[in-house]
């Protein structure tokens, strides 16, 4: 059933692996580039089938290219997911035990929060009570920085959120350990962290910010799509980046660089 991979598929996979995550715009440009480089047949609307061929071969390795939405800009991204260990141990070759514990604590804070963020103050407090080995303030800041650089967390004005890569790679694990604490977005049905929540406590549905923006676009009197109560939150603007239709068609689509610089190749090894 599974078709063999051509060099175009291999090039696509390699690029995805070394980047960690690519936006769907980048993936489209890369798809074209890989097919053209190796003289393979290219059909622009067959990206997902192209990826299916790779996924069929990755399956015995317990790996999978998965698509997910960014909670920041509402765009689709692709990441290579390790199905064998979808939890934090996935990061274990890059981080010490107490650093991993800090990451888990940060995840706890984010899951417990209403809007999917954890403040640096709260994280610093956790660092003081780590079971494995306490961390000083400076050290904690350094480790948090590393999480951001390695694309596991995002940071904005001292508030930390889970990155798109982290959500795509760890969704299953998080659903398993946090169970009902993890809510789905009412609009797109993906897990929702950075979101707005319905004030009606018997309802309490969640919606991603970009989903809220799209859903309530042009409505002056927003009501909850589930319970019809008035939607009390401020409706965010639709971000520029979402008008992607025209861009993706231009032949020389040079996709925007990743939101954070990739460091997969420069990650320092703590052993050796």
């Amino acid at each position, binding site marked *: 059933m599974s078709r063999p991979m051509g060099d175009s598929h291999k090039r696509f996979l390699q690029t995805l692996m070394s980047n960690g995550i690519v936006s769907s715009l980048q993936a489209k440009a890369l798809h074209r580039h890989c097919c053209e480089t190796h003289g393979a047949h290219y059909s622009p609307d067959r990206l997902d089938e192209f990826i299916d061929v790779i996924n069929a071969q990755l399956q015995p390795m317990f790996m999978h290219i998965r698509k997910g939405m960014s909670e920041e800009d509402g765009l689709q991204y692709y990441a290579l997911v390790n199905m064998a260990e979808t939890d934090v141990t996935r990061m274990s070759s890059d981080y010490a035990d107490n650093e991993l514990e800090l990451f888990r604590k940060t995840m706890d804070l984010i899951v417990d929060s209403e809007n999917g963020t954890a403040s640096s103050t709260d994280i610093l407090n956790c660092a003081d009570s780590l079971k494995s080995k306490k961390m000083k303030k400076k050290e904690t800041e350094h480790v948090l920085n590393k999480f951001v650089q390695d694309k596991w967390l995002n940071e904005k004005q001292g508030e930390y959120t889970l990155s798109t890569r982290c959500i795509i790679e760890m969704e299953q694990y998080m659903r398993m350990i946090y169970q009902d604490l993890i809510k789905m977005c009412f609009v797109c049905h993906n897990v929702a962290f950075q979101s707005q929540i319905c004030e009606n406590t018997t309802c309490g549905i969640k919606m991603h910010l970009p989903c809220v923006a799209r859903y309530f676009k042009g409505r002056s009197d927003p009501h909850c799509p589930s319970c019809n109560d008035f939607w009390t939150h401020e409706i965010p603007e639709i971000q520029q980046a979402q008008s992607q239709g025209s861009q993706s068609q231009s032949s020389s689509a040079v996709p925007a660089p990743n939101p954070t610089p990739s460091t997969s190749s*420069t990650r320092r090894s703590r052993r050796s």
Partner: protein
Amino acid sequence: MSQRKRVAAVGSQTKHFRRSQQVVLDEDDGDMSLTQPTSSQVQKARENFTPVQVDRKVAEVVQFILIKDQKKIPIRRADIAKHVIKEYKALYQDIMKRADRTFEQVFGLKLVEIDSKNHIYILVNKLQPVPGEPISMCPGNPKTGLLFVILSIIFMKGGTVKENVVWNTLKKLRVDVGEKHEDFGDVKKVIIDEFVRQKYLEYVRIPHTDPLEFEFRWGQRAEKEVSKMKVLEFIGELHNQEPQSWTQQYREATSVETSQR
């Protein structure tokens, strides 16, 4: 594709390449951690583990090597045996052969033994970098350009070059090894530590020199991953000349391409 060119020049260079190209997975001179199992031991092991278990082991080996490779750390066979293969020791050959096949067929990579005494492997890329990548195959790494320049200098100077020549040439390109560089930081450290450790460069002492002098050569990873023809084309573009105008380098580049087919 230039790689497909067949040139019937089989010099000593070519033979050398053939030999080092081979993936040496099948010979085993029995280091401490891994003595050659007898055929009956292998047979027994094959019966002891289900195909599903062995499949899983292959996947673990592949992942283990991929993670090491991301950091460009050479992989020791002893580490694979100790950390992954463990009680499947008798099936080491089977498992490694399948892992190697996976690297080629799925990832476009090849497992190459670069040190047959200590059994050290690296993963080399079977796919050549091509211009105009919409996203880089080695992202966030401005050092790739630096490395390519150094490899070019060495190649054009006949394969070995004194370190001072490299430092002076870089200086002309406004990369001063004495100063901290915006992209590379401590340039000298990147070159003689990082590139050497990753096996892109060799940095060796020239015998009988006082004060000490060092020279650069291509490292084993460079020999396997970097196309000499690409280097020559790059130089040709810089000088606005055909690659053929450097007769000796052109001959070497074409003979290597042939042997790697």
